[in-house]
């Protein structure tokens, strides 16, 4: 297992080999359907967008959060199905310079192409491993767009050895999911 630290540079992303296992520490931000929609809408309309999205490690996740004193605490935070964001992700990657996406299930050819173009990787987290992942997000740095609701808000975390994460789409746009699906045995 290789330990990596965000923010990631383009070179960091390019150095991650397809199929390898990594563990990530450093800042990450969550975004799913609604946050993607709003971010792109705000860009089009010239409205403000959270700074934290730029150059980020984007986590497809709608966590369960609980109040902890003045702040928040992650109770359960596994990845959500990334494919729902397929139509919006290429623009997100291009406009925000996203360096890594953490999710489950993989993403479309168009997203892989944008990853290749901009130097971004896709890291597969274990779907449903929500408590283990929440434990690797000990610090909540804040939240944006809380009006979207707990699952859809943009949560900012400081990750501490989050993993195992599998490099499932590399910065060349090669996808482990495609390899698996091409070699599936269908009787």
């Amino acid at each position: 297992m290789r330990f990596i630290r965000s923010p990631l540079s383009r070179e960091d992303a390019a150095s991650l080999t397809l199929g390898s296992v990594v563990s990530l520490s450093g800042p990450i931000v969550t975004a799913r359907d609604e946050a993607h929609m709003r971010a792109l809408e705000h860009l089009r309309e010239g409205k403000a967008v959270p700074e934290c999205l730029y150059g980020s490690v984007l986590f497809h996740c709608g966590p369960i959060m609980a109040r902890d004193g003045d702040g928040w605490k992650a109770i359960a935070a596994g990845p959500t199905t990334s494919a729902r964001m397929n139509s919006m992700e290429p623009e997100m990657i291009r406009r925000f310079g996203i360096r890594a996406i953490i999710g489950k299930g993989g993403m479309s050819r168009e997203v892989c192409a944008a990853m290749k173009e901009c130097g971004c990787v896709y890291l597969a987290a274990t779907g449903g491993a929500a408590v283990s992942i929440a434990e690797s997000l000990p610090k909540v740095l804040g939240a944006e767009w809380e009006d979207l609701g707990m699952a859809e808000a943009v949560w900012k975390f400081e990750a501490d050895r989050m993993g195992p994460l599998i490099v499932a789409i590399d910065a060349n746009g090669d996808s482990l999911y495609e390899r698996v699906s091409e070699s599936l045995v269908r009787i």
Partner: protein
Amino acid sequence: MIKLPETVEQTVVNILRLANTKLPSDVGWALEAAAAWETDGRASAQLGAILDNVKKAELLGRPMCQDTGIPIFYVKGKIPPSIRQDIAAGVRRATAEIPLRPNTVDPLTRENSGDNLGEGMPIVHFIPTEDAYTEISVMVKGAGSENMTRLGMLNPSDGAAGIEKFVADSVLDAGGKPCPPGVIGVGIGGTAEECLLMAKAAAMSSSENPDPVLRKMEEDLFVRINGSGLGPMGLGGGATVLAVKIRKACCHTASLPVAVSVGCWATRRASARMTGDRVEYSQEADV
């Protein structure tokens, strides 16, 4: 002194907590077995992470998955008239107390009620019997797997081979999206809506299929799908399904409905049987 039985509301909070924090033993064993057979390194790492997470969830009393889903209730036996409101009260309290993620939104405005209630919620199926008890069972179903549900109105000439192909393709086309390896529920026959209900009930049941023909089909599909190479999380490997469970009913002579309810590894369920003075909890269910 006679101890008053728990209210329906409290019982519903309890079964939601049990279902969300503790994996039923048959599902847990199937995962352990899959981990023991798995030969692919990446797949073993995924299964290890799942088992580790299951243990942590139980220990900390937290939901094992952040998608605490939509709870689907079945009420069997004696049906008290206020049961729907009582279940709703239990869902509201469980959402705040456990806590569960508020998942319920209006389908068009996408407005979130915040308490997992709203129009048409909670979903409750009734099975009235002559029994003196009331049994409430719940299955918690996340969207990642629910979104992969398929209904096929096949041609009668497609036969058993066509059914098996439809089921296998449904699982393989879903890829890693529904967090494999999961429990796959299949309905064969009935009408369109009955077929889907059978698939859901089959996915929930913890008992062995009494029909030897269906049992054979379940075993064949289990071997066939696990030989596909899809693997845990669709990243390659041997463990793609934990079990295949099938139910059937008669159908129109010109129809062959097949429904596939794709489940994830987090197959979560619990039930409570309430009699006059006591409540018995279990994680087995047969509806």
